[in-house]
Structures are given as structure tokens and as C-alpha cells.
């Protein structure tokens, strides 16, 4: 696979505007499924993992996922290619670091991706820009329904879809939204969000998913409960909390824009100036300043800056993407220099 095969600009979810794109970057849904009659992937011997891949390839390739679709054997991929897919949120770190036969199938618009032999045999994911949980769910469900015509799933009437980890059993549904919460972070209110989320059975994670720090003030909020609630109820639990959350961030943004106007403008312009002139910059630092620039663009403080282009940079300035652009492996120091040059060019 070559980066040139993928869209140079990043997946559709990074670009598209839409409902509440001022705060909501993306909406993602994933369904965990396993084939009946096989042990779960981590317990399956290598021959069976290979057999599972062989069995699902046909049904996957008969899906219509846009103009072009890709199958990538992660076990046979270059490390940097697998990492590019992680950075684009097409596969998880678990799939990247897993063992044996495994892969991913995705469409060129990068809306739908199906991981094979991650923790579960199938992880069907759909990710869309801005607030679009329903659309993401429908996209994932359409794939699920097409696959279940051809692949017998491991299910029980009592426990629903059976998954390797009991935390996913039942619907196997994890719905999440990626939120940009710079004002809540700045005003040190973000802990309240965590508390409100956990009270309603939702979990908060960093930009790159489980166990990752919240870089660039980006947070993922997702359901924890998958069993004992219907799919609609699970989606509703997220949708119910969101308006209050968005309103809270908005109020904090207003407060920053009125009471701390000069400070805010200073922060935003400094961030942009820094990104436009740095000669070396780490991933974390870049994300932090991109976050401020994004906030400035949303609040209309930075005329002429396209919000969608800033969104892409969160992904394109990450290590594996830079190495692909450069066409060779880069040491950390070199990478920071390349990142700075890349950002200067993009934000010029």
C-alpha cells in the first residue's frame, strides 16, 4: 500500500463540515462480531486465524464501499504503513501490534473499515465528520447486515453477540464522538465533563483511543454499556448528554471571547505564528497549537483559515504520515524538523 493510494488529505471524516462541526470533529460507531464455531482470535491457532481471514475476504470484497476499496494484510505490511492506518483511525493499535493473520478492509472515502482478527474476528467501524451518529450507525449496520447473510455469527438469545471481552457483549456496539474542548480545558472545567459522562455510563478517552492522552484538547466520549440496552437506547444515551456538553463548551468559549478577549486573541495568534515559523516541533506541541488555531478559526478570530484544512493537520502531521511523505524512516529529531516544515508550508 502506498500513501498515494490513500487520499492525501485524510479521510472524509477529517474534512467534511456538518452539524456542530465547531465542537464535534467526528462520530464513530463500531460493531464487534465473531464467527460461530471458531475460538476468539487471541485463542485461535494460526491456521484458524488464516482460515478466518480467508473466509471473510470474499464477503468483505463483495461490499460496495465507494469507488475503490482496499484490503491490507497487517501481518505482511511495513510497520510504517500499519502506523499510517492507525493515525488515520482506520485500525486500532491492538490490530497493529497483534499476532498472526489479520487485516483491514476499507473504502477509499475511509468512512467504513472492517478489521479482521483484532480482539474479535470482525470489528466493523464507520466514522463520519461532525455530529452524525445516526449516519455512522446506519453505515456500520448496512455492512453488518450484508456480512451476516454470508457469515454465521456467534450469538446467543440471552447474551446477544458474543465477544472476546464481556465488556462488548450484547450489541457489540460502541458509539463515540470526538470533541474539541479547548475552552473547557482552558477554564479547567473538563473534569466536570468526565464526571457527567461517567454518571450516565459513558467513558472519556484521548484522541487516539483507549489509554492515550488527550492531545490537542480532543476527547472521545463513548458508551460503556453494550448489554441490556438496545442499539437505539445506546445511541440515545450519547445523544442525550451531548447537547448539554456542547452548550457548556460554547458558554466557556463565549466567556473566553468576551471577558478574556485579548488573552484569547493573543493565544490564538501566537499559536498560528509559532506553527508558521517553528523549525522543529514535536507532535504534542503541534497538536496543542493546532487546537488553539482551530478554536480561533471557529470563533472567527483568524480570517481566511479553513477549518477543514486545520482538522486534517491533526492527522497528517503525525509521525508515520511524515515518514511516508518523506519516503524514508526518520529519527525523532528529523521528524520534528520535517513536521515543522510541513506545517509551515500548509499554514503559509
Amino acid at each position, binding site marked *: 500500500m502506498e500513501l498515494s493510494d490513500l487520499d492525501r488529505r485524510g479521510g472524509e471524516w477529517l474534512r467534511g463540515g456538518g452539524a456542530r462541526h465547531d465542537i464535534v470533529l467526528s462520530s464513530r460507531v463500531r460493531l464487534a462480531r465473531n464467527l460461530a464455531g471458531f475460538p*476468539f482470535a487471541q*485463542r485461535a491457532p494460526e491456521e484458524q486465524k488464516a482460515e478466518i481471514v480467508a473466509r471473510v475476504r470474499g464477503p468483505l470484497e463483495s461490499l460496495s464501499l465507494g469507488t475503490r476499496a482496499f484490503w491490507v494484510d497487517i501481518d505482511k505490511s511495513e510497520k510504517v504503513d500499519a502506523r499510517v492506518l492507525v493515525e488515520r483511525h482506520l485500525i486500532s493499535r491492538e490490530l497493529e501490534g497483534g499476532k498472526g493473520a489479520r487485516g483491514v478492509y476499507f473504502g477509499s472515502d475511509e468512512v467504513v473499515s472492517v478489521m479482521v482478527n483484532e480482539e474479535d474476528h470482525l470489528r466493523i467501524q464507520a466514522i463520519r465528520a461532525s455530529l452524525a451518529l445516526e449516519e455512522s450507525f446506519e453505515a456500520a449496520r448496512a455492512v453488518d447486515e450484508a456480512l451476516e447473510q454470508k457469515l454465521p455469527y456467534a450469538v446467543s438469545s*440471552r447474551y446477544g453477540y458474543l465477544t472476546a471481552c464481556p465488556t462488548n457483549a450484547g450489541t457489540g456496539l460502541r458509539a463515540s464522538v470526538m470533541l474539541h474542548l479547548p475552552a473547557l480545558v482552558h477554564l479547567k472545567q473538563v473534569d466536570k465533563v468526565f464526571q457527567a459522562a461517567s454518571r450516565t455510563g459513558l467513558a472519556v478517552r484521548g484522541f487516539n483511543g483507549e489509554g492515550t492522552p488527550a492531545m490537542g484538547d480532543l476527547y472521545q466520549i463513548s458508551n460503556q454499556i453494550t448489554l441490556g440496552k438496545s442499539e437505539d437506547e445506546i445511541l440515545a444515551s450519547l445523544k442525550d448528554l451531548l447537547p448539554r456538553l456542547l452548550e457548556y463548551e460554547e458558554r466557556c468559549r463565549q466567556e473566553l471571547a468576551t471577558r478574556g478577549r485579548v488573552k484569547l486573541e493573543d493565544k490564538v495568534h501566537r499559536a498560528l505564528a509559532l506553527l508558521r515559523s517553528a523549525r522543529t516541533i514535536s507532535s504534542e506541541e503541534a497538536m496543542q497549537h493546532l487546537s488553539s488555531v482551530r478554536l480561533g478559526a471557529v470563533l472567527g478570530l483568524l480570517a481566511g483559515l479553513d477549518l477543514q484544512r486545520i482538522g486534517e493537520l491533526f492527522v497528517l502531521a503525525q509521525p508515520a504520515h511524515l515518514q511516508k511523505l518523506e519516503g524514508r524512516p526518520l529519527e525523532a529529531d528529523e521528524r520534528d524538523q520535517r513536521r515543522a516544515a510541513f506545517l509551515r508550508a500548509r499554514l503559509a
Partner: protein
Amino acid sequence: MPPPLCQSCKQNPATIHYTEIKGPEKVRELHVCEACAQSQGMTGGPTLAALPPMLASLVKSPKSPGAPAPRCPTCGISFAEFREKGRLGCPHDYEFFQEHLDPLLEKIHGSSEHKGRLPRGSGPEATRRNDGLLRLRRELQQAVKAEQYESAARLRDEIRLLETVEVPAASGATLPASGTPTAATPPAKERRSRRTGGSGGSSGPAAPGA
């Protein structure tokens, strides 16, 4: 507490604990010392004829106090192993470890019963067939490891045959996402499945290409 005595020589402490599971209610245990196990070649008695890998794993953990934990007959995982790794071994574990899993599911989800859509083939018949497949695949894996190619070939045939068995869809199996599952599928506490043989219990015509 001193370790139990070997059931064979009744002199040495039993360090090898063997459990034979013929179903959830039928568990037979055998505790022997290493000398007796060796003198019997661990294959002498009819009860020890099967499952050498399982014995090997038992030899490795002689410290387990008292009765060894039951292992899922289709994937070989024990509940302790699940606790350690956080991942189950196969779909049958949900049934086999039900009494341990239900409280855990309650803790995680506040419920241990599914409410949501289900695809076709989710009835007890399908479950039995799938558990049979799991078991056959495990036996196949062991046969290949032991280089018993004839039984491996036979097991492959059995798997192929069992896979072509069309399982009748459970009534109301496919529920709409917004459906109320209570009427269509009462939370039937399926009885644990018996061992499904490779060929028996088939019904209906062969499925069109799996």
C-alpha cells in the same frame, strides 16, 4: 493443609490433578502423584487416555490447591485464565462459565440479558451446532499437533459436514434495532448444550455455499 494423597498408591501427595468433564454436571476428578502418573504412562487408564495437552498444562501448575478449576471443553480456558487475561477463549465460554460471568456482566452493564437485534441462526440449534464445530476444530488442532493425520482428515470431513447443516432460524430471530425483544424472544435460559457429535442431529437441506 496437607495436600491430598495420591488416589493410586495412597502414599505420596497427589501433585497431578486431572479433571474429566463430560458436561457441566458430570465432572470427574483424579488426583495422583508423579510416580504413579509416570508408571501409568498417563495413558494407561481409560480416563487418562485423552487430552494430553490438558495434562501437560496441569503438570505445569501443581500448586493449584484443592480441586482444579473446570476448563471449557471447547477452548480449554479456565475462569482464572480469563480473569488474568480479560479475554474469553470461545463463544461457548458464555454458557460454560455462566454462573461466574452473569455477576460480572451485571457489574459491567447492569444487566446480563441482551436487548437488541439478533441475526438469524441465533437459536439453541445453531448454538449446539457451533459448539460442536468448536470442539471438532480443537480436536483437529490436537490431531495435527500429534501428527495423527488420519484422524485429522476424518475431523476435517466432520467439520465440513457439520458446516453444511442448515440451522432453522429461531422464531423472530431478526429483531429491528428499535424492537422490543420481550415478546419475540423471551430471555430463554437455554440449557447447556450436550456434546454434539459431528454428524448427528442434522435437519433441513444443505446450506447454499457457506
